[in-house]
């Protein structure tokens, strides 16, 4: 078992994602939601962060928040998984605890 880390802040505005990536262990899961979803986009100045994390962690993005912001599926970094609200609940249930990097 491992932890679920959540990030809801834009990687361009806050350092929540940086600290999450620095302090989450290999094998843990990261869920990006609300303004955190911008970190899941390919071709941005922040893309390398998630691309690097995918080497040893699972990364998820909350689809309703992604769609709300007009973001297209083909811009999602390869390896990042879309989840809906039920998927979010499943992740919470399957992990030991949730660490929110608000």
């Amino acid at each position, binding site marked *: 078992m491992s932890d679920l880390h959540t990030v809801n802040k*834009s990687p361009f*505005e806050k350092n929540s994602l940086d600290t999450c990536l620095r302090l989450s262990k290999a094998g843990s899961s990261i869920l990006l939601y609300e303004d955190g979803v911008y970190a899941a986009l390919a*071709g941005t100045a922040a893309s390398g962060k998630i691309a690097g994390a995918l080497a040893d962690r699972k990364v998820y993005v909350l689809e309703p928040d992604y*769609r*709300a*912001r*007009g*973001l297209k599926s083909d811009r999602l970094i390869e390896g990042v998984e879309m989840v809906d609200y039920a998927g979010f609940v499943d992740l919470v249930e399957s992990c030991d605890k949730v660490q929110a990097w608000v």
Partner: protein
Amino acid sequence: MSDKKQFMFLNRRAPYGTIYAWESLEVVLIAAAFEQAVSLAFIDDGVYQLVTGQDTTGIGMKNFSPTYKTLGDYEVRHMYVDKESLEARGLTADDLVVVPWEDWETEETVDNIVEVVDSDQLAELIEQSDVVFSF
């Protein structure tokens, strides 16, 4: 001397995650109603406010993005987008909303008042403004 002032609204936040974008839009519409010269600038995550294809059905919030398309009708004449912010996010002008403008008296028209500008231009525009509102 004219009573008309140059108002500049600086938008630096993404939509939906916080209320800044929506609040800015509300104040823009109020300022335009008072017949001031209103310009908007989109910087940092603010450029995300103008991205097309927003669909908020899944998050239970109002999709206010169609309002940007109507700002020309409220006599907003300029919507500046910071080039550096756009590029850092892998976006181009093609990803953004198109906002037409028409002067009802002279019938002068502009196809799109959304304009990508560089840092020097933006700095100049901010300095030339009488009043700057930050969101």
